[in-house]
């Protein structure tokens, strides 16, 4: 979703400067697939086939198993399986919030990486420009912007570190 917004932003920037209807002038930037009006709905047949296939496969597996297996319920067989141990107490237990915090930190820096990827790909064009494109380079500001972005995330990391979010024991 963030990359989708990134692509939309990028497209919006591109299309916006030439104000809409003349957007086809920027097709050479690889936006043909989005703007090409010749694609048809037939292209989605493979997607439909994939979805149907997924359903059919699962249904066949479950139905076949239900038909073939014996049905002889016993009290011991109907209890919850816990690797052979006796179950004690309710299955709703308190789990450690460290799992959640680690996942949260991972997510933040994963999104960070998602934003660094397009920047890295476009870095040469941003800094030095490209003679075949209608594009004015911004020079060293490209680097400073990413440093500013990473600086903000550094503050977030320092906060998490000092607050003990990265402790596991």
């Amino acid at each position, binding site marked *: 979703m963030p990359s989708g917004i990134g692509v939309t932003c990028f497209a919006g920037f591109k*299309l*916006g400067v030439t104000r809409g209807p003349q957007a086809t002038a920027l097709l050479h930037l690889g936006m043909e697939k989005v703007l090409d009006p010749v694609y048809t709905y037939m292209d989605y047949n493979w997607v439909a086939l994939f979805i149907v296939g997924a359903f059919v496969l699962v249904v066949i597996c479950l139905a076949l198993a239900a038909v073939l297996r014996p049905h002889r319920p016993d009290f011991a067989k109907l209890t919850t399986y816990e690797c052979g141990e006796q179950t004690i107490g309710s299955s709703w237990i308190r789990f450690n919030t460290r799992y959640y915090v680690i996942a949260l930190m991972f997510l933040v820096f994963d999104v960070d990486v998602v934003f660094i990827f397009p920047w890295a790909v476009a870095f040469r064009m941003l800094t030095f420009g490209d003679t075949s494109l209608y594009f004015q380079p*911004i020079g060293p500001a490209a680097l400073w912007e990413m440093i500013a972005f990473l600086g903000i995330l550094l503050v977030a990391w*320092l906060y998490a570190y000092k607050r003990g979010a990265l402790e596991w024991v």
Partner: protein
Amino acid sequence: MGVSFAVGNVLSLLPVGVIVLAALLLVLLDVLWAGRANWRLAAFGGVAVVVAGIAQLVYFPRLPSQVLGGALRFDGFAAIVALTVLAVLLLTLIVSPAHMARMGLRGGEYYALLFLSASGMMLLPAARELVSIIICIELLSLPLYVLAGYNRSLAFSREAGFKYFLLGAFASAFMIYGAAFIWGTTGTLWLGGIAESLPSAENRALLLLGLGLLLVGFAFKTALAPFHAWVPDVYEGSPSPVTGFMAAGVKVAVFAVFLRVLMEGLMPLAEFWRLGMYVLAIITMCLGNLLALHQMSLKRLLAYSSITHAGYLVLGLIAANAEAVSAVLFYLIAYSAAVVGSLALVAAWATRRTDDVYISDLRGMAERQPLAALALTFFMLSLIGFPITAGFIGKVLLFYAAYKAGYIALLIIAIINTMVSVYYYLRVVQAMYFLPREQPEEEGAEGAVKAAAPVSAVAWPYLTVALISVITIIVLGLVPRSLLAWLSMCSF
């Protein structure tokens, strides 16, 4: 010409930059001082706000200056909204440490979150492109979701944070989807580009769908009915300084950008959104007033009154002419002063058990705290729109703009609603001045505890904020011309 990502005039970003830097430093300072330094953090924040305010005044954009490839364009309109937000932030900072101490709240993330939200508010009116606007609205809202639930010991506060988060996330989803449809049909996200390509847009149905979704998203954020359901619970549950910040700052910023989006980007579709906003305005004003009539809790009353005031502001949005711009800004400034002041007094009188003040608690307040009672009276009068207060001038300007645009019926409905609202505002004043203090029915220890319920003396931070707001209201009510001249200079 080519696509220009030119960084532009970076000095225009200096005020916002100071606030963002202050937010980051507040995070680090909080970690350094281990969450026990409310006053020091607030003082540091206050210094940062003053520096940012001075920077904004020094670099006041007489001519619009572009930054970041034109995605942000700072003009007088944006600068005035930024200054209003900074003033609201400063008043909130003055009140916060005392309130945090009273409620037993630890943690300095509060201040960092306030500053991050304020930076979003300052960037919003300068954004010229739908995705930037949405990002700034997110920047404004996400810290407020956390701040609304900051008082973790109070179930009300946790509920408020959760509700605000869920409904705010829905609102943002609507807005993004609407922006996507508008991009799909017009091919551009820039407000100027949208306005130019609207007459020649092909798929009218998708375009109107996009417009509707975008309006729904904005209506959520500005608390217009029927998207107002979150407002009373969120305003009542949040810590009182946060409620003041939300009610004032979010309204100022989001209404400003809403006005800009409608007037700069969507004017060709004016018949459609004017019709929609017409209906929304009538429902909002009537519903807000009717639901406020029987509220006994002062925070809930202020919440419903903020819904009603959003309804009045929609008149300015519908009018969408030059007078409407300065009228909306003036009204927002007057409303912010009244609301921040009222909520500072609520914070002063709130009990620790429920972060709220009931009208029955206000009985006889005029004898106990004459100065604070007088301040609250002025806030209520300004919210009514009584003469010599800034609220009166704001309403006059707003109604004049609506009259100029020809919406007479809407004007009459707004005036009737103003008259209806007099009841619940003056009921507060009546309780303070004319009703005697309730005697406790039970004698003995329980009665003594109830009689000694903490409606204590108003501490200096709350009184300071209340007096500053009263002075603002009276000055703007008696001499509005200074501000008005400035505002009309900054029209777009």
